[in-house]
């Protein structure tokens, strides 16, 4: 009993540690006072100021654009990579490939940023591409480190999944490409959706890599937040943070609802299939 008590305390402490700062951030976004720590009454004026801040809004637009392109590209590349790692067995250079997939997960951002910038500079000297740095280079850089996350998610989903469905389709004469699009893809759809969302969030969140590979005129939202936070805190950032959290939690809530419903539907289908196909004495 005593140990359970300790565990419950530890759990509550952990959740408090995770959520109290966020809760305070939200509360103070409605603060009338400019001083972030003194309560001066309820107000939504920081939200109004936020929507008049053109620099912030254009940076947010750029970031959303980069994040959407990054997430889409990394879902395509990451799914192929995850498929190769989970289903293709041993192939030439698999160790190197596996290494290049897992290393970006833990690579310090300063190294990723610096190395990609130096690559872009060298490429530009050699081939003339990319012509200057901006939205393209940021998207390429973000895709490189986010596709690793997608690959790992897809790979673990494929590994835990039964191969018999794919094999059955093959035995019935379906071509590999058709098997992938008709059987495998729908089965790993939840992993792909969470991979897309994760890549989107990671891209929207990145300040270090973007600072290295962005050029003049391509300032992303985290870069704006970072420089304004460095010069002190402002309730506008609180308002922005609250809005971002609202959007993210709504997105996740909807995604998990949809996935839960699909899961239930699938279970029902499977049950019905069993009832229809299995002979009565075996039920």
């Amino acid at each position, binding site marked *: 009993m005593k*140990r359970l008590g300790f*565990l419950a305390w*530890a*759990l509550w402490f*952990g959740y408090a*540690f*995770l959520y109290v*700062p*966020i809760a*305070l*951030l939200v509360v103070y976004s409605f603060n009338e006072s400019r001083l*972030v*720590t003194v309560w001066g009454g309820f107000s939504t004026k920081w939200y109004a100021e936020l929507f008049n801040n053109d620099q912030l809004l254009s940076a947010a637009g750029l970031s959303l654009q980069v994040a959407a392109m990054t997430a889409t590209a990394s879902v395509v*590349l990451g799914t*192929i990579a995850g*498929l190769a*790692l989970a*289903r*293709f*067995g041993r*192939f030439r250079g698999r160790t190197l*490939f596996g290494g290049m997939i*897992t*290393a970006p997960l*833990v*690579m*310090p*951002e*300063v*190294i990723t940023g*610096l*190395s*990609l910038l*130096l690559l872009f*500079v060298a490429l530009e000297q050699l081939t003339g591409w990319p012509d200057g740095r901006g939205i393209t280079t940021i998207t390429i*850089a973000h895709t490189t480190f986010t596709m690793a996350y997608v*690959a790992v998610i897809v*790979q*673990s989903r494929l*590994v835990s999944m039964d*191969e018999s469905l794919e094999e059955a389709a*093959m035995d019935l004469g379906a071509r*590999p490409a058709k098997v992938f699009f008709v059987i495998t893809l729908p089965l790993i759809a939840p992993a792909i959706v969470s991979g897309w*969302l994760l890549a989107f*969030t990671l891209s929207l*969140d990145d*300040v*270090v890599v973007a600072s290295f590979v962005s050029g003049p005129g391509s300032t992303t939202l*985290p870069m704006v*937040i*970072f420089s304004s*936070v460095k010069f002190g*805190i402002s309730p506008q*950032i609180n308002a*922005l*943070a609250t809005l971002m*959290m609202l959007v*993210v*939690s709504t997105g*996740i809530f909807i995604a998990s609802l949809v996935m839960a419903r699909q899961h239930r539907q699938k279970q029902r289908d499977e049950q019905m299939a069993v009832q229809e196909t299995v002979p009565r004495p075996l039920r």
Partner: protein
Amino acid sequence: MKDLLSRVGLWRRGAVIAVPYLWLLLFFLVPFLIVFGISLSEAVIAQPPYAPLVDWLHDEDAGTSKLQLVLNLSNYLRLGEDELYVLAYLNSLKIALVTTVCCLLIGYPMAYAIAKAEPAKRGPLMMLVILPFWTSFLIRIYAWIGILKANGVVDNLLRWTGITTEPFELLYSDWAVYIGMTYCYLPFMVLPLYATLEKLDPTLLEAAADLGCRPWKAFLTVTLPLSLPGIVAGSLLVFIPSVGEFVTPELLGGPDTLMIGRVLWNEFFANRDWPVASAVAIALLLFLVVPIMAFQHVQGRQTEAGR
């Protein structure tokens, strides 16, 4: 498996893998070689600000040209000689270690409690751990500024309860960096820990209890050793990126909170010394090669275990 292998033509499989493979070669592996190359070059005032490693020298008198390769180790020598770099490396290791231990101390009981909860509750409880990870890292760090600064939440609380009377500022110190980094990396620790603890066979603990083993002893001799893979994976997942962390020490740390990520950033952006920044990056990478390989080993084993 075999079926799939034999039916998909080899060349076709190759074509499928080639796209992500080439992408990673070009944008992940080749850049490191370039960083290494530039770390051996010399800083010059030019655009880009480093001397080319390879040069065609044309001799007018003899009418011949030769290829000259200039390698310059002075950047690395500087890293060894200047105390600043050595201190920054050591301090980064210290901060990363403290962060890892803090995450472990807070994360292990959490993961254990969630794994022990009723199966229906586990999903939502884990969701609550992961959810903050989906909100911006930068904003989570920002939240701590308001809490830790003088006249902030902690300061006001302490003065209100009468524990302190003087203004008390935790911000801009190593303590703030520990708190901020533990906060940001905690989900990375809880996730792999929960994954191993959840798979743990409860009958093992029952057997230990039936044989008269006290709960804490059963925990130390059964649960803890069996959860070691999770501990290792979580620790590496926290430790490796922590060593090169830049944002947290920059925003929460004081000007004397030396970390190697900050040094690299300043060499690159403030001093515009690309070769030294590259040398710092290569030295950091050498530091991390062993932990990164250990991480890949653990990661590979975990995916195999999922089969």
